[in-house]
């Protein structure tokens, strides 16, 4: 996948995560992806597909009762010590920053936000108090907050969701990390603020060459900001392609289903449905089905789909885990073109 760079910055390979003591409850069933410097990879999928677990694995912050059961997580070629909290602490925020979903809940209500940004700097950088303070102010300025002096002294309940998310981004950026994992960074925000936050992340990426892993279920967001997209379903990656390629030429029936499941006024005008939903529900993590996990909901599933999980195939830039990629192409030709 990494044509330009032989060694990707962050490489996740065959990551498997399961409920501790219940190896049959597999949350991630072999997830592989890689991100390079200055690149944005989006991980998309519906709730429960394992995208958040993937990002928490990278941080070594899997919740209690969930553990990594296989695969590797490498940062710049070195395996991440995700089970060693002491070593992982030196990597969190210092080399991998994280932006969370709920900015309103992400900051401690009893400390001014400036202090909370300063805490990261104090933990990972040896700066004097005044230098740390100056850095906090310049970070708050960098993330586009007006009057950093006042904001730094404010308690979280005095700031808006958008302002808080900027503070959280400042916190994630504070130690110049190589990677930022943004887990649904705009889900809790207004649409206009969403666009501002994504533009901010993009600008910061241009300035610092930070790699961004954007975890989201919002395809609109992905289309505007990601370089590449990995689609996850049922604990597996089903398709990965450059953003434009994925939107124009999806190969996996699930990817197509996702794209179809965005509201389409055009389609409605032509007499179709506003929204084409995917029938059925996500399989349970304990469901032992041997084949493709999407098969029960797939309109194009055939007998071979039930037998074994489909391997990832295709050219380096566009990989898909499906026995019958783009199976609808044949149907579309026989029917009237859209």
């Amino acid at each position, binding site marked *: 996948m990494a044509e330009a760079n032989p060694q990707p910055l962050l490489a996740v390979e065959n990551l498997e995560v399961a409920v501790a003591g219940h190896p049959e409850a597999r949350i991630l069933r072999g997830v592989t992806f890689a991100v390079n410097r200055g690149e944005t990879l989006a991980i998309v999928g519906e709730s429960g597909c394992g995208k958040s677990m993937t990002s928490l694995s990278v*941080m070594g*912050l899997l919740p209690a009762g969930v553990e990594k059961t296989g695969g590797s997580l490498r940062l710049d070629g070195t395996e991440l010590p995700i089970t060693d*909290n002491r070593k*992982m*602490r*030196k*990597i*969190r*925020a*210092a080399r991998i*920053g*994280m932006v*969370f979903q*709920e900015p309103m*809940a*992400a*900051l*401690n*209500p*009893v*400390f*001014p936000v400036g202090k909370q940004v300063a*805490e*990261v700097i104090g*933990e*990972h950088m040896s700066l004097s108090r005044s230098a740390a303070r100056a850095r906090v102010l310049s970070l708050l300025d960098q993330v586009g907050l007006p009057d950093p002096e006042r904001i730094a002294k404010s*308690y979280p*309940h005095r700031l808006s969701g958008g302002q808080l998310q900027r503070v*959280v981004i400042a*916190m994630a950026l504070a130690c110049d990390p190589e990677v930022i994992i943004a887990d649904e960074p705009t889900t809790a925000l207004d649409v206009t603020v969403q666009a501002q936050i994504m533009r901010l992340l993009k600008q910061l990426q241009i300035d610092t060459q930070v790699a961004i892993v954007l975890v989201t279920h919002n395809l609109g967001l992905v289309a505007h900001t990601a370089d590449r997209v990995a689609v996850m379903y049922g604990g597996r990656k089903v398709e990965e392609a450059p953003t434009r390629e994925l939107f124009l030429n999806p190969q996996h029936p699930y990817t197509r289903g996702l794209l179809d499941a965005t509201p389409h006024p055009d389609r409605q005008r032509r007499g179709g449905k506003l929204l084409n939903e995917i029938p059925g529900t996500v399989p349970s993590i304990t469901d032992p089905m041997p084949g493709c996990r999407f098969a029960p909901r797939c309109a194009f599933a055939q007998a071979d789909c039930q037998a074994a999980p489909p391997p990832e195939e295709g050219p380096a830039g566009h990989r898909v885990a499906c026995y019958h990629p783009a199976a609808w192409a044949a149907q579309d030709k026989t029917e009237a073109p859209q």
Partner: protein
Amino acid sequence: MSTSSRSRPWIFLGKRLAYGLLAILAIAVINFFLLKMAPGDAAEAMAGEAGTATPEYIAELRAQFGLDQPVLVQLGHFLARLATFDLGYSFRYGEDNVTLIFDRLPATLMLMSASLLVAVIGGIIFGVTAARYANRAPDQAISLVALLLYATPPYWIGLILILVFSVWLGWTPTSGMVDVLAFNTGWAHVVDVAHHMILPALTQAFFYLAIYIRLVRAGMLDVLSLDFVRVARAKGISESRIMYRHALRNAVLPLLTVVGTNLGGFLGGAVLTETVFSWPGVGRLMFDAMFARDLNLLLSILVLSSAFVVLTNLVVDLLYVVINPTVELK
């Protein structure tokens, strides 16, 4: 802007003080009638002790103390004196009630602060530890001990502590506040008092320690499930810092409220503890006043205690503003 209410604490203070005064007045009146309903009075008790309990002598004593007047007139006198901060005179001790109480107050306050400190600091340390190892061995041990301390009556704990540490082991004195025969001065006196205080302070602390452990544990578990704790972990800071700085700072807010309301309870507990350990404090004085039917003294103690509780609760509310930035005075 709501900031203005933060900068206008005087209105809040004035309101609270007015309510406090009303509460103290109500407590004084109710206690006055309660004590009047109790059988016996100071005259009977004194006459009984003197051994010359002729009705004439008792009547003479009553007239001397004003006890022969109608109850409402007595109440009027009492409230009128209260308004001038005059708490009256104890015929039994031959001393002003205020002097009596304030002589004993330091001993009580010292014991109270010591046990309060033990309960709060112990509650925080054990509560945080229990939450950190929730449902594992350390938590189970701490929770079991807390349950035992909670369920055991304090006076019984006091007697057992005396039995074990004073009688069997001989480590601590059995009672009193100082070694009267040693005539210690300076530093030696301080050490002596501290030595005497260990058992009564622990006795009084244990019950509250149990409550605070459970409260801090529950509060910590609540806070630890919040998002900002995970964000704090993602910052790479240490687990102890997350516990004691990020989580505890939020979890002590309910503790502060409960400690505030418990201060009255500490005073009430002083009666038992000070009696068991012969600690020369206000609680002991109250106990003695009760037996001697020195209702005037008893009433004075009750009024002063209620004033103390009202004031400390006000202080706790003010502290809340300092410790919790989202709370604003109204």
